[in-house]
């Protein structure tokens, strides 16, 4: 017997609670988790946390480009809107887009990867060559073309980021499935009369779940950056809906005079991505399935 069964530390606990115990002891991972949780809180509680409206223009001559001050912590932009308020509301957009896009890409990628890995042979070869081909397409150009063709909206961005991001997950899951496929418990399940679908969904994917969750968490940071990049190029979330990338873009024209308009959303993007990456690394350390199987 290998792994955690041996040491008394985790006796009597399941896989998840043993991992959680390890996760809790990892300070960086907890920092990441706190950052991410805080962001979701902020996104939900935005209307309570700020008295201002994120979209409505302020009294322009008087309110335009105000320096950070106690009333406007992050200052105001060229339309006299409170930057702090827009950053708060912007978190809704960034978190929603990144979460949904990763969900789409992970679910689709996992199923494709699992089918390829479990089927093997010809089916596997065909699927993986398609994946290779899709990976060879430069993602940003594809995104730009699509957004230019169909006018931008949040849902379009979600779908685009989702369907262009599943290939890496498919590869990862396929690799995991290949190593699991030959294992005795899969053969034992077959010997009990379980069908293909059941084996993939009940036996193979749950065993890769920790790997999938870790990869998904690490990918959220990338998606947030991609969304910011699109919005920065003016092809992401259409204004006036606040999104961090678009705010960085809008502040660019006044960067020397009013540095705060771009800087604060930029810092938040960085903090969010770091938060997700710390969380992802921590999850990997805590739940690495190689410690069990």
């Amino acid at each position, binding site marked *: 017997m290998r792994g955690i069964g041996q040491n008394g530390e985790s006796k009597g606990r*399941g896989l998840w609670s043993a991992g959680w115990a390890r996760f809790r002891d990892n300070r960086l991972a907890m920092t990441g988790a706190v950052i991410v949780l805080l962001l979701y809180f902020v996104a939900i509680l935005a209307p309570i946390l700020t008295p201002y409206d994120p979209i409505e223009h302020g009294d322009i001559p008087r309110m335009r480009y105000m320096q950070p001050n106690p009333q406007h912590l992050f200052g105001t932009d060229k339309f006299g809107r409170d930057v702090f308020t827009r950053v708060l509301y912007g978190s809704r957009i960034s978190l929603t887009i990144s979460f949904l896009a990763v969900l789409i890409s992970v679910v689709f990628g996992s199923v494709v990867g699992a089918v390829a890995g479990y089927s093997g042979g010809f089916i596997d070869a065909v699927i993986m060559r398609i994946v290779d081909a899709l990976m060879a397409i430069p993602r940003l150009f594809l995104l730009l073309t699509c957004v230019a063709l169909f006018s931008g909206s949040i849902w379009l961005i979600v779908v685009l980021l989702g369907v262009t991001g599943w290939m890496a997950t498919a590869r990862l899951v396929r690799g995991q499935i290949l190593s699991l496929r030959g294992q005795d418990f899969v053969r034992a399940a077959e010997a009990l009369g379980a069908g293909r679908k059941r084996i993939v969904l009940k036996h193979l994917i749950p065993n890769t779940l920790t790997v999938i969750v870790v990869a998904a968490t690490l990918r959220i940071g990338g998606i947030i950056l991609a969304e910011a990049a699109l919005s920065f190029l003016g092809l992401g979330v259409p204004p006036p809906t606040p999104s961090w990338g678009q705010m960085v873009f809008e502040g660019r024209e006044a960067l020397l005079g009013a540095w705060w308009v771009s800087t604060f959303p930029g810092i938040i993007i960085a903090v969010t991505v770091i938060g997700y990456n710390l969380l992802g690394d921590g999850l990997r350390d805590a739940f690495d399935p190689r410690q*069990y199987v």
Partner: protein
Amino acid sequence: MKGINMETLLRIEDLETVFRSDDGEVKAVDGVSFEVGEGEMVGLVGESGCGKSVTALSIMRLIPDPPGRITGGVVRFGGRDLLSLSEKEMRKVRGNEISIVFQEPLSSLNPVFTCGEQVREAIALHQKLGRRASKEKAIEMLRLVRMPDPEKRYKSYPHQMSGGMRQRVMIAMALSCEPKLLIADEPSTALDVSVQAQIMELMLSLRESMEMAVLLITHDLAVVAQMVDRVIVMYAGVVVEEAPLGSLFERPAHPYTEGLLGSIPKLGSRVDRLPSIEGSVPDPLRLPPGCRFSDRCPKRFDRCTEAEPEMFTVSSGHRSRCWLLAESEGS
């Protein structure tokens, strides 16, 4: 002794399973034929690599393809040829009418589900029971295999259990649909000696109470000696001897069987060195000409390297693949 008026449950005829390798096709099972009667317990014995596990997997049609393939033969079970069933029909046989218990109880359980869940799944695969009912049945199965504290153990993960307990879970899963035939592929080899005995005793008593046939695969004739009605000895992909238990131990007809019997330590007799069979199992790609055992056989004579012997009848139910028998028959 059973076996005379028993209905045949499983009849294998000329089973042939090959594996493709870089050096060519290997016939892991080369024309194996035998029968298992209803409720009968049969031992399938041989060294590792002799094709006994491949035979078991072939019966279940679980040979990994590629590289393996069943290329010939008939596996008749309950009036059907299992080899000609569709995959869907075969799934209804697996775990339901024929079950198999593997050697490694840890790796045969899914590490991310509780043992109880896995027994429950085995039940749900073939029986239309609700969640509650199937859970109760699963706990009942755990009790049947004498799992201590089954309600609590239902919620344990495989890594929280001992090897013996895990094998009990595997047996509970295999028996959950009351199969007519249980194939046990070295079920106790990976366990401690004392646990081995418990598992074997458990299987023996369950076999009595559930009236099922058991095909016990092992490399250990001593294990077989206490349990089975009949023994089939395999060597290099073929059956070399088949006999009722008593007959095999008293009058082994094949030199290979003699060698196997000779290498069992006997309690009370003092020997400095256990006798063993010279040499090792031949490379299946480079089998010796004639009898496959000829290169290791202490009783080899000219005819052995000229042609492969057929199965000769020694006595009722006792057959052996050795030219020595032809000599004695002929003279």
